[in-house]
Each structure stands twice: as C-alpha cells, then as structure tokens.
C-alpha cells in the first residue's frame, strides 16, 4: 500500500478555498468603523472663505477665520438677515451652548453662544453650559454653510454632543430657519421646553 499524501499536498490552497466557501457575514453591515467623512468635510484649500457661497457672509481677514470669527460672521451675516431665525432665537429659553472646535493646525478653540439674547463670545465657559458640542473645524464649516446638519456629523461619529439636547434642538431650529427650512419640533420637547 502506498503512502497517503499529507493533507497539505492534497489541498495546497486549503485555507484560501475554505474561505471562499463561507457566505458573507451579516456583521459586514455593522462594522464598527465610522463611514468615511463626506468630501465637504475634508480640510479645505487656502482661501476657501473667499469663494462663494462662503464669501457672502464671511469677512475676509486675510487669513482663515477662527471658530469664533466664523460663528460671529454667521450670526451677523446670516442670522440677523433672517427674520424667522431671529424670531425663533428670541422665543427660545436662554441657553448657553459651548463649541469646542478642533482645528488641525491651530488646535482647540472655544466659542460660547447664547441663545436669547443671542451673543457669541470667545473662550471656554465659566458656568456649566447647557450643551457642549465638540467637533472638527472642517465639520463646523459645512454645518454653518448649510451643507450638512450638525446631527449628521454627530450620528456619523465625527462630532460629539453632551448635555441638554433640547438646547441643541433650539439651535438647530435657528440654523435651519436661516437656511430657509423649518423642521417641526418633536412632540417630546416642543419649542421653548426647558
């Protein structure tokens, strides 16, 4: 009787072939990785703020605006010109919202925003804010530019928010009103809810 060949000889590419027999895993649909950022959330080339539509409301300071300048220009250049947004912002309860914006070169910048009366101030908060939003500078830009909603960045894992979501909804309402849309508030936390 001849010697039996070893398994390795019989199936030289066993592992590879075996892998092919497996059906695709259901886990593929729930891979832990976040989806890749959309193109408009990637770092922008120098001078982007001089291009429309951003040039319509961003003041050209000869350099890329800081997070504070960006939010201030947004309020001055866009919010004030929208009566609906002003109405919403003045009907909301007083809110303190803090943005912690991470810029790839400049590092962390803090901006505080008050809703009702509206005010934008630079620097970290003194009091406990209602809402703390932490995001990348180049996510913040398209949010203000109306290219993407802030919740999109949050739920796709590029931004985090902590605190009173109602304050977030208040601000979201103002932002969407500026862009010309209105989204009805959810029944659980209607407009003005503490």
């Amino acid at each position, binding site marked *: 009787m001849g010697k039996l060949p070893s398994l390795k000889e019989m199936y030289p590419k066993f592992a590879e072939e075996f892998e092919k027999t497996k059906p695709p895993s259901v886990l593929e649909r729930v891979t832990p990785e976040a989806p890749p950022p959309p193109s408009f959330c990637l770092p922008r080339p120098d001078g982007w703020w001089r291009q429309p539509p951003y040039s319509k409301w961003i003041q050209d300071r000869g350099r890329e605006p800081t997070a504070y300048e960006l939010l201030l220009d947004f309020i001055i250049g866009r919010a004030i010109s929208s009566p609906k947004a002003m109405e919403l912002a003045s009907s909301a309860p007083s809110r303190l919202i803090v943005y912690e914006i991470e810029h790839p070169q400049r590092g962390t910048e803090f901006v505080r925003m008050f809703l009702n009366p509206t005010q934008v101030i630079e620097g970290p908060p003194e*009091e406990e804010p209602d809402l703390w939003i932490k995001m990348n500078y180049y996510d913040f830009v398209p949010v203000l530019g109306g290219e993407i909603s802030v919740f999109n960045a949050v739920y796709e894992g590029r931004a985090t928010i902590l605190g009173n979501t109602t304050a977030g909804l208040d601000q979201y309402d103002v932002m969407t009103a500026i862009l010309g849309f209105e989204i009805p508030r959810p029944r659980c936390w209607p407009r*003005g809810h503490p």
Partner: protein
Amino acid sequence: MEKRKVLDERAGQLEAREREYVRELYALSKKYLEVEKERPLYSIMQKTFGADPFALQDSQMYKRGGYRQSKRKQEFARLGRQVAVERGLPAYNRAVGLPIGQRQLEPFLISGTNIMVEQDDTHHLNNVAIQQMLDDIKRTVIVNLDIAHRMLTVRAGKEVTPETINLYLETLQHTMCGGAVAQEHMSEINPLLVKDAYAKVITGSDEVKDALDRRFLIDIDQLFHPTRAEKLKEAIGDAIWIVLRIPTLAVRMADGDEAARWAAMQNTMAFIASYGLSGEHIISDLAYSFKHARVVRMGNKMWYQRMRGTNEPGGFPDGYICDFMQAERDLPARRFLEVAQEDEEEALKYSRAMHEGIGGIAAVIDNVLWLGFYMSGGIGFSNTVASAAYSEVMNEISMELIELSHRYMQGVRKVPLRWETVRTMVNSIIQYTMESYEKFPTLAEFHWGGAHRVSVIGSIAASSAAMLTGSSTMGLMAAHYAIAFAMKEGWLRTGWAGQEIQDHLGLPYLCSMRPEEGNLVELRGLNYPMQSFSAAHGAIRGAAVYAAMIGRGSSWCLSPVVKVAFADPHLIFDFKHPKLCIAKAGIRQFMPAGERDPVLPPH
C-alpha cells in the same frame, strides 16, 4: 494684552449672566404640562387611574375599601374561605398580613389590545397563556434529518424519496402521539390527552418543499415577509429539519428535558416503521443522531446548583428567546435606520413589533418564569415588573425615539459603534423617559418599584442603541449606562439591591468574550452569572438582542431554524401576538393544552 483684558471683562459680565440664565430657565416648567396632555400617556394614565395624571396627591388614598376595591381579590377572599371550609385547614386569608388595598389597585390596559386586566390576572399560575408559552417552548426539539437520510442510503442501502419522507412524516404524527408502530401489546395514550403533539418540517429548498405534503410543512414563504423568507431560506439551505412537539402534558409531568427523550424515541420508531428497519446496528446510530447529533434544544443544561435539564428556562440563550419572538415577521427585512429616515409610520411598526416581543416574551420568561418562579418560588413581585412591559408606556416612548431619528438623522449612512456617538441618542431618550416619570405622578405610581423603572428605562436605552447600530453589545452597554449611571445619578435610586450586581460588577465584563466573563449577548442567557439574580434584566437583554436584529435588518437573531420553528401556526400559544394571548388568558378566554379532562371523573 489689551484684547485679553477686554475678553476678561466680557467673561466677567458673562459669568454673571450665565448664572442668571441657569436659574431663570426652569421657571418655565409648569407651562409645558399643557403640552404633555397631548401625549397618549396622558390618556392611558387617565384611563388607568380615573384621575388627573398630573395630580401629586391622591385624595382617595386609604379610603378605597382595602382589598374589596378589586373584584379579583374579593373573589380570592371568598374562594379562600371556601377552600378552608372544604379542607378543614386555613387557606388564603386576607385577615393575616398587612391590609392590602390601602392604595389604588389599578387594573391596566395591555398594549396592542383593548383588554384591561387586574394585576393578579398576570400571575403565572392564574394566567394559562404564560404557562402555555413556556410549555410550547419546553416541548420543542428540532432535529436535522440529513444525517439520518444519509445513513439510510449509504449504510442500509435504503432509498429516500419524497414518498418515503411523506410516509415517515405521517407515521411520525402517530408515534409522537404515543402510538405503537412496531410491537403488539404496547400501552398507548388517549389521543385527546396528546392532541397537541406533532412534528413538522422546515426546509430552505423550494424543490424539497414542493415534494412534501403541505400539512407537514412550516411554510417559510407563507409565514414570513418575502425579504425575510429569502434570507431564512438561504440560511437553512437544502437541509431538512424536523420540529418535534411533544405533548404539553409530558413536559408538565416531567420537565423540559423530557422533550428530547420523547422526540428521539418516537422519531426513531417512525423511522423503523416507515423504512422497515430491524434491530440492526443502524438503529443505534439513528437514535444517536436524534438525541445528540445536530439536535437543537431550546435551552442548555444549567450548572449543578441550579439543577435543571435541557429545554428549561434558565438555559435558554437570549438569542433563542428573541428567535421565539415573531412579531416582526410580516415586516420587510430592512435596516431600522433606513426605515426611520424614510417613514415614521413604518418605523413605528418595527418598534411596536419589538415591544410586543420583549414585553410579551422576554420579560415574561425572565421576570415571571425564571426569576419569579424557578428562582424565587413565585412570590409575585417580579410578575408586577413584567407587567410594566405589557403596558403601552414603552411604545409611547419609542414613538419619540422614532420621531427624533426621523427628523434628526436624515442622511446618516451608518451609526458607528462608538460610545460617544451612541450616547447622544441614549441620553436624549432616557432623559425623556425619566422626565416622564417626574411629570406624571400616576406613571410613577403605576411603575411603583425601582425594578419596574429599571426595566422600562433599560429596555428603552438598549433598544435605542441596538436599533440604531445593529449591535446587541452596544445595546447592553447603553442599558447598563442608563441604569447604573444615568438613572442612578439623576434620582439617586436604581432598582432593588440586586441590581447593583449586574449594573456595577457586570460592567467590566460586558464586552469581554472570554469564557466565564462575558459573551455575545445572543449567547448569554437567563442564568448568566452576572445577570441571573434580578428582575428587569431579561427585558433589557431581550431588547438589546431583538432590537439589534431589527437594526441590522436581519431575519433572525441566533438561529434561523428556531425562528421558523416558532412561526408554526399549530402552536397553541401565538408567538406573534404574545400580549394578546396573555390578555385573553387574563379575562379567561385562552384555552391551553395539556388538560387531563378526558381521563378525569366528571367534574
């Protein structure tokens, strides 16, 4: 420096204003109670308590006539006296112990139905549907026939054709009912006693299906939405599985372990009769294959101290428990996130299906049966926890989850498995739930114990996280966060002391896959070391697993055959409408199996 100074000055002003705002803001609260009146919860509570749901004081407290306010308790008191007289020994007696009924003994509406039941009606001894649910699970065993068929063709040289399989299936119905097939002078069973014993086939192949007698088939195409059927059939493939259901009476007399014995014996006998086998060696191999090889039992054996056989509740894996649930089977197999983004109404159907399953099955198996009955002996506390899950409250709160995800998650492609991302929705929804308890004193009275609120808040958190991400582990993490961190720090109270064990000691093991530490949630079970002590957690794990399945758009949680086996319309308990069955039993409209009437004297 100048700029710094200006900023500092501004900051000073701001600090004062910030403080002022924080104080002023919440004076608004009462204004928003008006808005709360529009919630379904308001009318549910109004109906349940017959009082203003916002009233903090109950002027009728202590004045409702004690236990006499409940018809059921009146009946019990009367029957207790009757029993005492009949047996000459005191029985149930309201004169001892504390005076029950100082508070309102409110009946409650079971969600998805129009049936109001009293608390006592949901006790597992009073509620025959709950008993039948457990019996239907315990009496099920699933066996793969491919091994047996291969053995017959290769080893015994027999031919297996559609005709022989159909003959075998017909014979099997007879043997499952205790009929003799190979020997004279055997004791047989009165067919009326075992009318719920039968066997049915599952296959993923259309060709095999067409060849079989339709009466013996659990038809995946007919029972499931086409998208689900397609996935199930693909997973089951050409294999033939047989679902064997032994009589209810048998598992009641022995225990769940009896199912596999009965099924193996009667299955072997059916093979012997239909294929004309003798006492040859192949019989032992057949018996082996029906008892051990590719046999799916509904539950594992438990460790020594628990001392239960297979097919008993403590051994059910959570994945199987969620496969018993059928409420979603008519809905298309789509990812929940997509559905929620597209259409709120449609998403609501998924969420209702989920609560039907976890409230009607997971909460009952864990709280009522495992903890209330098997573990603690049936004092009836954990039954009340399960009843928190029967009510409409969870659906009501889930509506907000759907509304939030519909409006604010548009364009989100996938929610990554990162805690910082998931916590946003989890925080929102559990804070909303907690606020609901604070706004509605009647709701807090309705869910009067910490374990009730743990059950609701934990399930809501687990289902939110799991539906959005499709991950059961993330669901469980959200649930533990909700109970052990958010709820505990917000109110400084959780459930009863047992909850500390799971929610604190169990946390570091939550994502561990090492044996004796953690596991996939689907593979954990009621007797899982860190979770086996306390009411409320069954619904939570059920929510994590079942919601994750709905979140992924899958058709089953752990086993496609178990999923299909419980879609069987011949089952006595309807696993698609568990709450309806329980409600019907509450008003004594549900007929269980396993009654001994045919052999009892007239009574």
